[in-house]
């Protein structure tokens, strides 16, 4: 598999009739739009030569790329796809032969391997941030060297504390990056377009908040729906019509399910145990969620879907995006993350939390003990699962199963 092959494949399946026929095979409307928009986004990154391609790490403000009409391509999200497509063992092996230590995060190793194997489209710009993660800023710089575009590599240095000065420092960086890319692409800065993008991002945000509010009461979901699959629209597509459409449909679909659920509520029966999911999940086929379902547990919320930022001001795009980045609960003290987790725990009335401790993710795993102790004070048990989101060979499935069963027994023994 290389980019030529992928380009050809996407060229075929991204044609409207085929794409929408493919979309209609999904039993959930949300999943249908997720898949259609993902394929269209990828097709643009691989085939649309009229716009530059920009690699971005997960927490960069993609609104800025949309405003600059740069087609975004998120290598970390694509690393999740390598797991789903079953090629992660190849990409990870390739990264090892390029001297990436096996102790490093597999999202970044797999992405690096995919890049070496020519699976990714060639970028014109690369944006990374230190927000939450050390690995992205380093691996993305290496990508820029590989493609010989170090001068088009931008690290967005997000300060640790949220203060007047840090907001100013970050706002200045975003503005400089925007101006530099504008000048390199020979475009005049288009602030009216930027305002539109910011308004769309706000619209997406409003729908995402509505979805999250609705989920506080929801326990009946469309078949195969898993909100941990929505990383791309939640992080990469804000500022586009696609993100708005998707979350609008998601809201309507989940509302229908809530109505069905409320219709059944005459007999409350055996209510499911409510789980909060922390960090990410395995993106290869895993039985974790089957086990939860079998044991009458439901993931009521995932921290990655938490809307952590305030509404953006279209008249102050750079400052608004800086505020968005500085508001992220994975930045700064662990207390920021703990506060969000405890708020979710109360609002979603959770019975237990599962923290998927992805191999090599120091920022998340390093805080596991504090998170566990904080939830314990509310009487909520936490299961920390050591595993790997990308490399199935780096997860002990038997051990995970045993630990989950033990945890679920504890949960079920609580009345």
């Amino acid at each position, binding site marked *: 598999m290389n980019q030529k092959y992928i380009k050809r494949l996407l060229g075929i399946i991204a044609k409207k009739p085929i794409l929408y026929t493919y979309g209609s095979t999904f039993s959930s409307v949300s999943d249908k739009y997720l898949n259609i928009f993902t394929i269209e986004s990828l097709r643009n990154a691989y085939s649309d030569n009229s716009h530059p391609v920009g690699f971005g790490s997960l927490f960069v403000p993609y609104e800025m790329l949309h405003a600059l009409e740069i087609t975004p391509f998120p290598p970390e999200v694509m690393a999740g796809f390598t797991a789903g497509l079953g090629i992660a063992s190849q990409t990870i092996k390739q990264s090892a032969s390029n*001297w990436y*230590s096996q102790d490093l995060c597999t999202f970044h190793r797999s992405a690096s391997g995919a890049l070496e194997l020519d699976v990714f489209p060639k970028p014109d710009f690369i944006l990374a941030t230190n927000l939450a993660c050390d690995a992205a800023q380093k691996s993305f710089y290496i990508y820029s060297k590989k493609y010989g575009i170090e001068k088009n590599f931008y690290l967005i240095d997000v300060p640790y504390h949220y203060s007047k000065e840090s907001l100013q420092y970050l706002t200045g960086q975003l503005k400089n990056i925007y101006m530099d890319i504008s000048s390199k692409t020979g475009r005049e800065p288009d602030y009216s377009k930027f305002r539109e993008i910011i308004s769309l991002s706000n619209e997406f945000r409003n729908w995402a908040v509505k979805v999250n509010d609705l989920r506080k009461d929801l326990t009946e979901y469309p078949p195969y729906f898993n909100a941990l699959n929505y990383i791309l629209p939640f992080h990469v597509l804000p500022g586009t019509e696609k993100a708005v459409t998707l979350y609008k449909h998601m809201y309507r679909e989940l509302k229908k399910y809530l109505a069905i659920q409320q219709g059944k509520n005459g007999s409350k029966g055996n209510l499911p145990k409510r789980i909060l999911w922390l960090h990410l999940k395995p993106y290869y086929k895993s039985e974790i969620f089957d086990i939860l379902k079998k044991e009458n547990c439901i993931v009521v919320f995932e921290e990655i879907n938490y809307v952590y930022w305030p509404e953006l001001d279209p008249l102050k795009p750079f400052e608004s995006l800086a505020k968005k980045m500085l508001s992220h609960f994975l930045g700064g003290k662990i207390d920021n993350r703990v506060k969000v987790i405890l708020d979710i725990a109360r609002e979603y009335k959770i019975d237990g939390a599962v923290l998927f401790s992805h191999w090599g993710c120091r920022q998340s795993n390093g*805080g596991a003990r504090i998170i566990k102790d904080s939830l314990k004070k509310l009487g909520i048990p936490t299961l920390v699962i050591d595993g790997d989101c990308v490399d199935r060979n780096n997860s002990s499935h038997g051990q995970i199963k045993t630990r989950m069963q033990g945890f679920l027994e504890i949960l079920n023994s609580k009345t």
Partner: protein
Amino acid sequence: MMQDNKNSDSPDLLKSKINDVQSFFKNTLSSLDKRPLIGWFCTYTPEELIIAGGFTPLRIMGSKKIVKSESYFPINFCPYIKSSWDSLLSDMSNLKALVFTNSCDGMRRLYDTANTYLKKIPSHLLDVPRLRGEDSTAFFRVNLAHMKRFIENTAGVKIREKEIAEAVLLINKKRRLLEKFSLIFKKFPRHIYISTYYRIMELSMTSEAQVFIDELEKYLKFIEDSAGQNKTISETDRGSIPGIMVIGNFITEEKLWDMLSSMKLRVASDDLCISSRYFIKLVDKDGSTDILTSLARRYLNKSPCMRMADLGLKLKEIENTIIENSIEGIIFISLKFCDTVLYSFPLLKERFNQMGIPVLYLEMEYNNFSEGQLKTRIQAFLEML
């Protein structure tokens, strides 16, 4: 007296004197006994502000064994951080405060852990930008002002500019002496053991500055006098020993340095945060800028850690060092799970290949490695050179 040097000293006796750190640094070794200390971890921490507040800066080196930390951090977590946490949980009665930096994800979580489970010791996190330039300097200056306030609150006194200026002079003097020592070490590799060099480097970060400076001056004078008077020690003694550059992070493994000392190699240069990245570059106080800005400039523009944004700059710096010191081989040695350093290796390796410089890649736990296996690998590497 060990410090007396005589023409008549046999080479072995002279060597043994030069490497007797205990004798030369007697006062340094006992300098911390009753002083109020502020612990620090990363070379981006300005010791000058700690000294100006009336404290002695102490770099936390970590305990030899990791026991208690295992229940606080995952298995695949930086061993320096874990060993530091172990040492903080042990007796640290002289520690009045801790200053952390946002050097990396691991260090941020260590700060959180200290803040949560070790509330009796006040702690502060100094936000260090990853970019260089005027905006970053101005922003870092603000953060240094926050750190200064934290020290003032801990001390219960106001820090005056004069006190910072005095501390700058003191630490600049230490830096100059360490640089001189590193040049002398390169000049006389057969007489100064690698283990001695790194032991003294460690002392420079874990002792009272003035006491250390006094003893280091005497020590360097002794070596210079010996070189002047005694024909058994001379610059030409490098002979055919291959010049190695050691690149890595927080490597304080005594057994490793002892092992390297016993092998046919010389450390002609290094890029480590317990050595060159600590002392290279002085604070330039020219009087036209305020002292915090001078400090901000020095720390942001010092020999960079791989945490900084511009890895290209780091590559260039290493490349220049290789050429200037006629390096014949690289030993890249990293603590396990150190993302910032491990991610730099693919780039470094590619560059070394282009330059035709062989490199030995080592990853190790903290104070825990297989001596025999490592020795075999290093020997095989040296034979290749």
